[in-house]
């Protein structure tokens, strides 16, 4: 299976994502933001980091970069696109997924392990996953998901919420909400569910010596689903 990770100026989780994808069997290529064309890929990943310094709204500059035209076309024609952290912010700014990401509720960068509940498994990203709660890792300053009531109704009606922040037993409540996201939303899909944006970093959970192994479960499952 072929994957491509886009490097924007200021991306800093591009290497980590490359390591993770390669570890679980993807043939991965690193693509420069200024390129026009995407190589043939089964999965495109927008990695974490601070694209263009995030000096404007996070992700907004990157959403206008050259390669994003191709990424948007790829997504619209049904190709799989995943945005992690800053990648999620870029997806939001590109309008590939609905809503916005505001500054964290307590106005602080947060770096820690969190649990997320996977509710919706009728999609290629989480299909066949045998766990309901995964332990992932977050590291962000602007992960506070927000959308209008109308939008919320729409994404709920379409089953577009991918993962929720929760405790280790899968209970979602305010206490388990690290950044103030509406409904504890940690990740969402587009309507067609071929585009996933999420704040947590599965690529930081791929080794028991690191923060944990649930990222490995996610990537192995994803590869099997794409095959």
């Amino acid at each position: 299976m072929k994957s491509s990770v886009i490097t924007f100026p200021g991306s800093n989780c591009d290497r980590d994502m490359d390591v993770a994808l390669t570890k679980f069997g993807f043939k991965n290529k690193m693509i420069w933001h200024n390129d026009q064309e995407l190589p043939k890929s089964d999965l495109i990943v927008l990695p974490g980091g601070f694209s263009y310094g995030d000096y404007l709204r996070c992700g907004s500059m990157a959403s206008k970069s050259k390669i994003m035209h191709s990424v948007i076309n790829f997504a619209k024609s049904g190709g799989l696109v995943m945005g992690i952290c800053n990648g999620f912010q870029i997806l939001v700014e590109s309008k590939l997924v609905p809503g916005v990401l505001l500054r964290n509720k307590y106005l602080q960068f947060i770096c820690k392990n969190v649990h997320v509940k996977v509710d919706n498994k009728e999609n290629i990203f989480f299909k066949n996953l045998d766990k309901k709660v995964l332990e992932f890792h977050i590291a962000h300053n602007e992960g506070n998901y927000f959308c209008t009531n109308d939008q919320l109704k729409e994404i709920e009606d379409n089953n577009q919420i991918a993962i929720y922040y929760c405790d280790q037993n899968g209970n979602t409540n305010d206490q388990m909400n690290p950044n103030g996201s509406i409904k504890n939303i940690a990740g969402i899909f587009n309507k067609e569910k071929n585009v996933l944006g999420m704040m947590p970093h599965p690529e930081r959970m791929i080794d028991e010596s690191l923060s944990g192994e649930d990222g490995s479960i996610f990537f192995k499952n994803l590869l099997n689903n794409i095959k």
Partner: protein
Amino acid sequence: MLVNEKIAIEHGLKSDEYKKICKLLKRIPNITELGIFSAMWNEHCSYKSSRIHLKKLHTKGKKVIQGPGENAGVIDIEDGDAIVFKIESHNHPSFIEPYQGAATGVGGIMRDVFTMGARPIANLNSIHFGSTQNKKTKNLLRGVVNGIGGYGNCMGVPTIAGQTSFDRSYNGNILVNAMTLGLVKKDKIFYSKATGLNKPVIYVGSKTGRDGIHGASMASASFDDKIEEKKPTVQVGDPFTEKLLLEACLELMYGDSIIAIQDMGAAGLTSSSIEMASKGNLGIEINLNKVPCRETKMTPYEIMLSESQERMLIVLESGKEEIAKKIFDKWNLDFAIIGKTTNTKNIELFFDNKQVANIPVNTLVENSPMYDRKWKKSKLPKKNKTNKTLFKSLKIKDTLKKILSSPNVCSKEWIWQQYDHTVMGDTIQKPGGDSGVVRIHKTDKAIAATVDSSANYCWAHPLTGGKQVVCETWRNLISVGAKPIAVTNCLNFGSPEKEENIGEFVECVQGISEACKYLDYPVVSGNVSFYNETKDIGIKPTPTIGGVGLIKDYKKMITMDFKEIENIVLVIGKTEGHIDQSLLSRIILNENNGPPPEVNLFNEKNNGMTLLNLIDKNFIKSAHDVSLGGIITAISKMCIKGNKGIQIKKPKFLINEIEYFFAEDQGRYLIEINPKDFKEVSKILDKNSVHYDEIGKIIDKEMIIDQKTKLTIDELKSYNTNWLKSYML
């Protein structure tokens, strides 16, 4: 503008220094030249009060590839790999403007490391604030933490460990010391020595602005009431540009285009160009009209003294200009050929086709002032006669609660959760342990790093304090299973013009050197920060030591959390009951006098090496060094981290229980072992003449000291974790 003595003094030069300049030049300098002299001859750049003493540091060792004198030190970690590391202070700017001061401190130290060709793999910091009652402390802490996170997080380099302390003596001068480690191949290290004539001198990175002019001079003076006016001397950081600069420099370094490279840190273009020329014994010619400027009408004086961040100076191989330019264009960074190397041994500056400065390089470097200031020796204070009946009135539980929730012992999670400590995917020991540990990417090796200081011990007796800090970092490395290799030091002191302060400096340096020599743990880099004083009140002497060690097989790394119920816990090292200068003495007994605990270098080395041997044989399940707050504080932390309890045995010693639990005798560790290994472990300890006591057995969820004194792990946790969070609300 005509230069005279008054203007020279306004530049921070002394009257006789100005006379020396005129004599060396055989004329009166113009204003640009005066600016250059003042930048090169200030304390921060010239080390004029410290140089003579720094020579005494122990800097040599088998693993040292590069000692002090370069952008950073380099050590050998085998298999062709090397670690580049250094610590640096950004104290003065951080007090004036905490966010930018701390951010640019982090940016500066990372540049020092990647200038040498190394990709930064870990950041650490040691930050010190005034009393928690002081009204400025909270905002300064918040600003500094935001600044460190803002810069390091954006760069994508994990911040893996640190130290935070609070003490009244920092009320008017906080300390922000930042340390970076980078990884490089041994045969791809870059240095700052220029070689060859007529080689192009290249400017890359951000444009030059008017920020930070005289930053290094500001850092070479004490504060007074008018520090607000000094805000313009603080630089403004742009981590995004630095990230681009990092990637562009590493890309260029992949080839063979670079002869020498130097980052523009303190004193900007001035010190970078002069250092490269001086090391290569060459001259350098610069056309200042070619320097990319952010603001209009900048004068030669401003261009030379600006401390705008994220800039580098490179001497290129002739003919490689196009290759280099292409890389910097790709990363959207400025690239300008601004001059060339010459054989004049002078620095010659041109602006609007006129020569605006012409100074022999050696006058700025070798001939810079060096002072052997008069210093005062410290006496070892007399031991306090603590009233032992006082101990009887203390309840262990209440005392422990106070200590665990005291600002200098409590959990610093509120701080390090704001730092990205997991990016790069190799952090195998996060902040909150004895050392941070990162794997060497795609190998079985890992590097452990720690940073520490003990201002109270150094204040009480600088010589002992200096030794103690080195040993403390040594123990932090041993506790995670790393073999200590080398250190970097950041020497924070008051005014060197005062006999007491320079005395503290001299004796701390002596202590550091003795310990480093004995432990074969050399100093490979560092910096000195003097004039940490406001209105005549200086800080406590605070040498900060950053220690680095190697773990050959990262799977053998040790953490401090208790692992398994029924395992037994040993105290390694002898407990004599030293209470003077301990946390117990300060915050419970309100006694600040007396000598610090004695440091026995033989025991330090012997205990440490024996533990490494036990770790290598897989006997040790968890380990933690005993420091502030004594044995009981260390045990509490192991309980909290492992979410397990301990049944403590009654100590067999004649000393009082309070002394036993809270004393800060040195050279001690706590280790957890399986009872079935006890015989074998005790054999090894005995064979090596290491003192040990069995202190207890791991149980579930409760710390039981005696029938009356029981604490649940949740209680311990809440004492330890809540203080900082609620303070910062």
